[in-house]
């Protein structure tokens, strides 16, 4: 799957791509066309190139070759269709010939700049000097273009004649005929030029794509620098230390709120995650998804340290999928989605992220469904992280709990805006398997309707008493 499809499913990845500073539309297009990779060797090579680009930014971003390269990339036009026409033997217009000359011009400059930055081994550009020579018969050395007089022995004299007529403001048909004659010769020259240029078309395409890639790579390196991303290592188990959600982190920084990165590790099979409401379980799953997608698309990870298995894909079920248009309720949409996920994860090794499954149905059957889901995932090769509020699930699997609310909270200090200061988002091993029961406390701390909370408390106490 390509990034352009993945960003429709994952806001975090979209945020990463939107935050990249491309110099050209071709670089942006290259990013969107980048694939989700499962091949370790290919990804290792991409991360190696990214590391080189990061090092280049650190050491050489003020150097002349770097500035020259940026300048070239800024002038890069996406001329794929022109080059495809050239390769197919379709005659190019003067404007298209200009674009080919412009490409050869900046390709040559970029090639020199890349050499100066010692990056030729990772960003090799083909030599397009043959293209430039053909389109620069007067050796002007600039990227301007027209059908030069020197292309045809008659052009200069005909144009001089035409110029003379213009000066006399002679708009008679003589000028029109002369102009037609010039046009006919220009056309001939275009045909000859295109024939001569055709042999260079594959190199021109390579050069264009390689410059687009250079733009993508350097934008990625800038993102590594700005966001503090870590080069991942491929391993058998997922381990993300200091994992952060870039979008949320930046939002918190903007509003002056604290952001707490978390550590998480998960192996094949199921991992159950519990935690109070607002303890960040959903954000955790989304952050893991973004990190995994970024890594397998060749980016560095939004974490301090990242060890990642390479999954065949990522499947996620988060939020309310209710859709009145297809007649499915929240519950039905979720079950359909989970079925799809299970089907996928039976076929290949997936990263499966499911947020509070079966939360919209009755708790008795809901709990049974979650237990069944965990059991299936536990047997699977895939790595599944499942959050839940259900206590006492009978599965034998790894369990984690978000530490949640710090003790000694004073209600007067709490608001939806400040709540994150009072939550410890880190995860701990959960040995008793009971989900935290803090829903009423949180509602009270948020200053919700007092009568509602009071009656709920009484009912809760009564039910506990009956159970005893």
């Amino acid at each position, binding site marked *: 799957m390509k990034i352009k499809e993945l960003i429709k499913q994952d806001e975090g990845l979209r945020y990463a791509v939107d935050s990249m500073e491309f110099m050209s539309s071709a670089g942006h297009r290259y990013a969107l066309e980048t694939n989700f990779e499962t091949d370790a060797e290919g990804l290792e090579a991409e991360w190696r190139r990214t590391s080189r680009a990061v090092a280049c930014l650190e050491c050489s971003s003020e150097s002349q070759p770097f500035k020259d390269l940026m300048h070239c990339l800024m002038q890069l036009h996406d001329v794929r269709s022109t080059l495809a026409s050239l390769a197919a033997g379709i005659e190019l217009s*003067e*404007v298209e010939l200009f674009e080919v000359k412009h490409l050869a011009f900046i390709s040559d400059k970029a090639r020199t700049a890349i050499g100066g930055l010692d990056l030729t081994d990772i960003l090799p550009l083909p030599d397009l000097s043959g293209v430039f020579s053909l389109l620069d018969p007067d050796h002007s050395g600039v990227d301007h273009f027209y059908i030069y007089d020197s292309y045809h022995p008659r052009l200069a004299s005909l144009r001089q004649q035409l110029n003379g007529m213009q000066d006399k403001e002679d708009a008679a048909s003589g000028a029109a005929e002369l102009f037609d004659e010039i046009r006919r010769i220009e056309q001939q020259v275009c045909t000859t030029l295109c024939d001569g240029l055709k042999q260079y078309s594959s190199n021109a395409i390579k050069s264009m794509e390689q410059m687009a890639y250079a733009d993508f790579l350097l934008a990625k390196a800038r993102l590594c620098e700005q966001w503090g991303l870590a080069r991942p290592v491929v391993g058998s188990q997922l381990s993300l230390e200091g994992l952060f959600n870039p979008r949320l982190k930046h939002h918190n920084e903007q509003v002056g709120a604290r952001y707490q990165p978390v550590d998480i590790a998960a192996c094949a099979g199921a991992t159950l995650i519990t935690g109070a409401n607002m303890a960040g379980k959903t954000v955790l799953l989304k952050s893991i998804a973004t990190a995994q997608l970024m890594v397998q698309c060749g980016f560095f990870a939004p974490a301090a340290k990242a060890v990642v298995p390479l999954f065949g894909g990522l499947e996620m079920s988060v939020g309310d999928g209710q859709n009145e248009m297809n007649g499915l309720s929240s519950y039905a949409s979720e079950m359909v989605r989970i079925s799809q996920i299970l089907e996928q994860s039976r076929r290949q090794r997936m990263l499966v992220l499911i947020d509070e499954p079966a939360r919209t149905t009755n708790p008795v059957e809901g709990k049974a469904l979650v237990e069944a889901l965990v059991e299936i995932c536990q047997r699977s090769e895939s790595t599944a992280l499942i959050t839940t509020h259900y206590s006492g699930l009978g599965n034998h699997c790894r369990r984690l709990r978000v530490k949640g609310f710090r003790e000694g909270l004073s209600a007067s200090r709490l608001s939806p805006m400040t709540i994150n200061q009072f939550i410890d988002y880190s995860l701990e091993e959960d040995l008793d398997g009971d989900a935290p029961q803090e829903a009423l406390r949180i509602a009270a701390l948020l200053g919700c309707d007092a009568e509602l909370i009071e009656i709920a408390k009484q009912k809760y106490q009564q039910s506990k008493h009956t159970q005893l």
Partner: protein
Amino acid sequence: MPFVADILQHRSLSIVGMEKNTGKTVCLNYILRRLNDMHVHVGVTSIGVDGEQTDAVFATAKPEITLYRGSHFITSEKHYAARQLVSEIEATGGVRTALGVPVLAKVLVGGKVLLSGAATTRALLGQIALLSDAGCQVAIVDGALSRLSLASPAVTEAMILATGAAVSSSLPTLVGHTRFLYGLIGLPEVSEALKERLENIESGIWAVDKEGEVHSLGVASVFLIGDQTRELLRYGRTLFAAGAVSDRLLQALAASQEGVELIVKDFTRLFVSRQTYAEFVKRGGGLQVLRRPQLVAVTFNPFSPQGFMLDSKQACTALSEALGVPVYDVKQIER
């Protein structure tokens, strides 16, 4: 020669016709010829498609734009291919339209060209800058006044207004319409500080308080204000409309009786009738703009596309008296 020397005081100039067939292209060709005689390096671009060989509405013969050796122009890829001159391409790029990418070229052997230019104000500003960078002493924009155009010619420093019999066959009506538009062109500019705050806002209605702070009113379009006029004035009497302003908004603001100061980007964003504007002003309202081009001349075309002709001398005198500025019949001064 009248007004051509005035153009040289400015780095950019637009020529705007009040209607089709008001002689805008005749005027442009006159200026281009005169500036060529004076060895001034000019650059030309346009808003939308212009320089068609025949008028799209009335199919009357329309003069082509004639460019001289050494000048620069920007047109679309499609119209570049149809040019009747010899030129060297210096750059391509910018916003691709249905007519292809914009092409910047230098004229090597003079001739005629079809101009098709910028679709948005931002693109137009980019093209003016490109022409200046190419060494043009003055960038000329073949403009248009249209509700349909997102690009405003009023971003140029100077402007020429072309009026003519195409506006109305009745001289008093023609004079009235022209005087009204002339008044709008001359609307006062806001302070530089306020201009900086407002110029990047692309849409909606905004409030400006006494300290010059800008507040969102949560109104995406003037068409959505409904009966909330009072609500719009919660930060004070000054409002900014980032898009087009129609009679409806002015009527609503006039009805509020609050003496609202309404700021618009420039006069081309105003699509209001004389009656509504008069009522708005009578109720204490006022209009201001972010940018006001310097009007260097008003030109007059006595011929209407329907075939009748106004008396040129009489019309120029009447217009000149009403506006307080000289008005030129371009066909006459060409002679």
